[in-house]
């Protein structure tokens, strides 16, 4: 498991290569990159700043990955989330999951993103032509996370 919170950009190819380097038991690697868009809630976004809760963030991300490992037989997981000021087109978050078969890698990467969106203490503030605004939590993210609650 590799979990990082950093200002710097990450390198998707390098992270996937590091995970699979020298291994011959991995059959599937699912990855997700979330990027800053130039548009949100119908208005232009010129930049955004990501704030987080140092200390809790790393714990929350580790807890998400632990839960994914409890649900699926995964071989390795990397989560990197950036903080600080980002421009449209900049990558924000990376999730990489390796497993023997593709079903687990797909499910776990989507699960981690859905839970990250509702449980990891990051907050986005957007700069628009109308000024700054804090991004509001989305009902659709709560709904996405709720899909994973086991009966």
């Amino acid at each position, binding site marked *: 498991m590799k979990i990082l919170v950093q200002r710097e950009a990450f390198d998707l190819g390098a992270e996937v290569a590091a995970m699979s380097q020298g291994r011959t038991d991995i059959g599937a690697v699912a990855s997700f990159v979330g990027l800053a868009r130039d548009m949100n809630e119908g208005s232009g976004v010129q930049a955004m700043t990501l704030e987080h*809760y140092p*200390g*809790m963030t790393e714990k929350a991300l580790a807890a998400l990955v632990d839960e994914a490992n409890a649900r699926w037989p995964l071989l390795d997981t990397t989560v990197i989330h950036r903080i600080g000021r980002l421009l449209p087109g900049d990558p*924000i978050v990376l999730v990489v999951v390796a497993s023997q078969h593709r079903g687990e890698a797909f499910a776990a990467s989507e699960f981690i993103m859905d839970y*990250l969106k509702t449980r990891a*203490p990051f907050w986005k503030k957007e700069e628009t032509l109308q000024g700054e605004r*804090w991004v509001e*939590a989305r009902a659709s993210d709560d709904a996405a996370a709720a899909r994973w609650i086991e009966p």
Partner: protein
Amino acid sequence: MKLRVLYFARLRERFGVAEESLDFSGATAADLIGQLQARGGVWAEELASGRAFRVAVNQEIVTLDAVFPEHAEIAIFPPVTGG
């Protein structure tokens, strides 16, 4: 008991404080929220029932009935929006 309370994002900005140390005679997260609401103004407004905020105790999100342990690090923040 003494509590260390952290505020993040929109709440940090609206309250004008990132961190404070306060005397707390209650037991639960709900008691603390009540104490902060009693300050009136933006505190009463942002922490009103029906407003969406989260409380974390020692860096884990809890429900309002959670009892605070001694020397706890408490954080109050809006619903998260990362990713």
